């Protein structure tokens, strides 16, 4: 049976039926996404590896709780990975020095060859990355900064206001407008 031809939702069903092959295929598709997100948030490869393993292990244990009508599989995975990474970040209190937390370095890059990833899936993920980077780049700089502090550091509104030395209401507006703009560019188009 060729698992590469099975779509994401069906893979989750198979994982819920205890198929390690399905989990292996899901990892091939989204291991980089989860690892890259954890690494960007935490700034440490070793901890990012732990998070990545935890995310997929959680999928193995909780696959039957996934609801396709509520979120895409990739959204579910990145959500688990981000939450776990931010929990660790908060528990640790500090981040490694010299690690960027913004969007500024997110320039388009050639997609490297990824072992195990179907070329078509790779192309689709590359295209998705281009769309998201373009959408984020279209935001005003102050919205991008506030969004980065919320997304990568897990800061609350008041923490962002303190970090930027801006009024709380201003920060709330920036976050809301940024998310509204991104939704109009990324979600309604799908």
């Amino acid at each position, binding site marked *: 049976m060729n698992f590469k031809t099975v779509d994401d939702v069906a893979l989750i069903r198979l994982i819920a039926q205890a198929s390690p092959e399905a989990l292996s295929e899901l990892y091939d598709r989204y291991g980089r996404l989860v690892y890259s997100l954890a690494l960007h948030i935490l700034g440490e490869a070793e901890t990012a590896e732990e998070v990545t*393993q935890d995310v997929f292990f959680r999928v193995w244990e909780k696959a039957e709780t996934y609801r396709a009508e509520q979120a*895409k599989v990739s959204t579910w995975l990145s959500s688990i990975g981000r939450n776990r990474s931010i929990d660790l970040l908060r528990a640790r209190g500090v981040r490694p020095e010299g690690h960027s937390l913004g969007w500024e370095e997110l320039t388009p890059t050639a997609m490297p060859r990824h072992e195990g990833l179907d070329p078509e899936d790779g192309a689709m993920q*590359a295209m998705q990355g281009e769309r998201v980077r373009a959408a984020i780049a279209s935001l005003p700089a102050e919205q991008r900064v506030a969004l980065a502090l919320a997304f990568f550091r897990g800061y609350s509104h008041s923490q962002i206001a303190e970090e930027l030395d801006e009024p709380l209401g201003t920060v709330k507006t920036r976050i809301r407008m940024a998310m509204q703009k991104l939704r109009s560019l990324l979600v309604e188009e799908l």
Partner: protein
Amino acid sequence: MVNNLHVSESIPAYALACLEADEAKRVAEHLATCELCRAELQSYQEVAGQMAYALPQLEPPQALKAALLERLPAVSGKPGAADRRATWWQRNVRPAVQLQAEQERRPAGKRDRLLRLAPAWALASLVLILFLGASNVLLWQQVGDLRASQPAPMKVVALTGSQVAPTASGLIVISKDGRHGTLVVDELPALDEARQYQLWLIQDGTRTSGAVFSLGPEGYGSVWVSSPQPLINYSSFGITIEPKGGSPGPTGDKVLGGDL
């Protein structure tokens, strides 16, 4: 107390988990009772989920996947990698042989009882095999149903190598709305710094440049395809070798081509 007012203004921040605790609690209480706001939340969670794609995609160490698969059986009731690697013989026949050996070692009374149980054991195994077979069929029917329920996939144009690059291959993946695309190529010849590859979008014999690109060190590359009109309007695509920066029209050897 749950109020009846919608919490739309707070939902984007709730999806990012950046609300203060008391406000997050108020929003959560409202969401529990409001289908409209739950749908709103899902769309913003989708935004948050997609933001991870903006990051450069880095390869985790290869050992990580192996470690994950090894971890499965140790802390879960589900069968894991160790079971997966076992052969059919190891999983099904060896236990029976081990049982026979166990019978040989036991005193006669116990051995007789075990022998009396053998037909029941065989019958139970047969039933289990039939059950697993039926489950497998049902499972793959579910997979088929899920496949059928998926929205139409993105269009994919396969590119094949010319005589200049017979082993090269490529794909153009076109978004569902036909407006965007990504080109992926593999095993194209390495070029010197003065030359680059150029993608041509072809319609009624007219060739429009879609991308100018170079390869990574492994001969593999991907590039965003830009087009003045929807990509699905073009009938075919070609890639040629051109001077660095590209040409107004094809001047060099064609290395890849394909039709929509």
